[in-house]
């Protein structure tokens, strides 16, 4: 894991100190809210429905036990004993007092964390594959490049007042687990025809009120040129991105309005015209220095099979199911990646108590090389666990009610905080998600349905990524009543697609029964258990599922 140098340390400490002064001035009345608001947003502080909310950056979703314990401490001392992991691999505290936020930022700085780049019209926290460095199917570990982009973008003076926020995601695996195609810039590490590793660059993806799948603007850019090329993209956006209308200010609108070829031409022109002083050419020793922080842990030489694990699977049905659903293949024989689904029945997706955070920290320290990831599915992941240790990890998770065995299944729902917490939301998300989860309370039924991504957003801003769920649910306000539009056909993976709205919105209480009919229809129509709902919709079209959705109950 990357460790702060003296510059990082100074920068984060000074920022926390500066914000303390700003808060003091605000509370004395020397700063009006309208003047204070941009300052607090630059420090991840929002004013939500019931209280202030602090969003803490977790760069590319990576945590250590020490950091996670500090988040647990903040949850206990300054909040209500829990935190909410988000679709951007961050964590939010929903009940924090403004007067105490400077202390919380100091506490974050103590463990090399902060809330910078979690709000405002800047380049936001860089996200990545939660299995980075562990996945068997990745070209190489993308985290050093996430960190390089983080350092380049943090407080970049030219890009601190962009037309709108800007999100970058990086993956190095063919199965896209980082949803790179729905980011302002998506980077996929790949080899060129000469076998050299660089990046495919996509620009202009995004969700919100105008969703787009990001088109490729360059098939391959070298590692050495990456920052220069990103800088060229940012310059074109900064120059021509709209500032007159915040709903048309994202880079996706610029790419769409110019057209991909013209946007790409302008970027190439900017890139070609950068003079030697403007080029951001990283010295190889700096790349090596940062890469060294992400050196693999000291893996043992192990067999691909574990008798201990096999015996435990044979002995306990629930454990067997959990292994089937929550373990992911690791690149090193004898190891696995453990998915901790924060989605037990009836809990707000992504919520974790301080006790659970501490438990995850203890488990990571003891069994997982002190490495914990936040997945954009709002779950936690232990990327490196010995197969022999899996039963012990499961037992420790079970003791803390963190053993939901539904990773990637119907009840592993992505949902934003919705109208229960969010000041922008039109409708509740969490209660709808919980009612849908109840459809899958029978594990055998949930397994029978198989892989299914259901995403719920409480408003068009799409924090629950409803556009890219196999089934997406969007809360809308209709004359003061909560209604929910249903979308089919979305995908967030390498075959990313925007779901289509099926028709009139449903009332809150109608959503779960309607989805039950859709799932029954899928079970009736699928060719076999291996044909997933998303594939069945591709084969059959959406009509039969739409008919089921609106059929009389």
């Amino acid at each position, binding site marked *: 894991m990357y460790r702060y140098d003296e510059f990082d340390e100074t920068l984060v400490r000074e920022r926390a100190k500066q914000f303390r002064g700003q808060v003091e001035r*605000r*509370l*004395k*009345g020397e700063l*009006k*809210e309208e003047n204070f608001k941009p300052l607090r947003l630059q420090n991840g502080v929002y*004013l*939500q*429905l*019931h*209280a*202030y909310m602090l969003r803490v950056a977790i760069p590319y979703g990576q945590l250590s036990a020490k950091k996670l314990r500090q988040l647990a401490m903040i949850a206990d001392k300054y909040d*209500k004993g829990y935190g909410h992991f988000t679709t951007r691999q961050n964590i939010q505290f929903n*009940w*924090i*007092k*403004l*007067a105490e936020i400077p202390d919380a930022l100091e506490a974050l700085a103590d463990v090399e964390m902060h809330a910078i780049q979690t709000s405002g019209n800047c380049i936001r926290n860089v996200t990545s594959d939660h299995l980075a460095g562990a996945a068997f199917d990745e070209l190489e570990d993308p985290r050093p490049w996430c960190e390089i982009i983080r350092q380049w973008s943090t407080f970049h003076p030219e890009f601190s007042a962009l037309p709108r926020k800007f999100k970058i995601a990086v993956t190095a695996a063919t199965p896209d687990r980082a949803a790179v195609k729905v980011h302002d810039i998506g980077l996929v590490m790949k080899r060129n025809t000469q076998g050299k590793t660089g990046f495919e660059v996509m620009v202009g993806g995004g969700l919100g009120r105008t969703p787009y799948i990001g088109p490729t603007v360059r098939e391959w850019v070298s590692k050495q040129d990456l920052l220069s090329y990103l800088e060229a993209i940012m310059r074109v956006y900064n120059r021509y991105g709209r500032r007159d209308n*915040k709903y048309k200010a994202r880079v996706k609108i610029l790419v769409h309005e110019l057209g991909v070829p013209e946007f790409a031409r302008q970027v190439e022109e900017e890139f070609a015209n950068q003079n030697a002083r403007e080029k951001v050419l990283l010295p190889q020793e700096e790349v090596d220095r940062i890469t060294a922080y992400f050196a693999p842990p000291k893996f043992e030489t192990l067999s691909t099979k574990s008798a201990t694990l096999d015996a435990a699977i044979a002995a306990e049905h629930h454990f067997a199911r959990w292994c089937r659903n929550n373990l992911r293949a690791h690149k090193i024989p004898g190891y696995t990646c453990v998915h901790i689904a924060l989605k037990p029945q009836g809990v*707000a997706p992504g919520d974790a108590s301080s006790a659970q955070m501490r438990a995850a920290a203890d488990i990571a320290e003891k069994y997982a090389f002190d490495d914990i990831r936040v997945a954009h599915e709002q779950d936690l992941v232990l990327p490196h666990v010995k197969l022999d240790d899996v039963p012990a990890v499961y037992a420790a998770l079970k003791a803390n009610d963190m053993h939901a065995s539904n990773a990637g299944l119907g009840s592993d729902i992505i949902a934003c905080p919705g*109208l*229960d*917490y969010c*000041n*922008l939301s039109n*409708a*509740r998300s*969490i*209660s709808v998600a*919980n009612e849908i989860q109840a459809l899958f309370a029978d594990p055998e039924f949930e397994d029978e349905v198989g892989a299914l991504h259901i995403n719920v957003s409480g408003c068009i*801003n799409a924090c629950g990524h409803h556009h890219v769920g196999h089934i997406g649910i969007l809360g809308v*306000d209709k*004359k*003061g*009543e*909560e209604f929910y539009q249903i979308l089919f056909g979305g995908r967030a993976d390498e075959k990313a697609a925007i779901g289509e709205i099926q028709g009139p919105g449903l009332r809150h209480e109608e959503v779960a029964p309607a989805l039950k009919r859709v799932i029954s229809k899928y079970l009736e129509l699928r060719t076999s258990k291996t044909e997933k709902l998303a594939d069945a919709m591709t084969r059959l079209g959406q009509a039969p599922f739409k008919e089921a959705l609106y059929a009389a109950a």
Partner: protein
Amino acid sequence: MSSERPKLGPDIPKVITAWVSATGRVVYLTKDRNWSEDLADAEVLTGAGATDILAWASKDQTRVADPYFMQVTPDGKVAGRETIRETIRAKGPTNHPMFGKQAGNN
């Protein structure tokens, strides 16, 4: 991106609500120009003069942030198209009954 509240005509009964600057707690403007955490204490406003009171509240920035009109019934109960939002705001999150004013611990 800011949240925009519906415009309320002068004849619609309304109260002024905001957040306490230091804590973020939800409050309502009372007749004596103080802020109360209890909606029952709020002054119900009608008529053109309400706009002047909102202008006054908007200057009370040391104590509160972002005051706005919230529709109520003539006897001060949450009403109108933002009933669900304002009920949740007044009581607490529906998924977490142990938090918020509904639990006495906002």
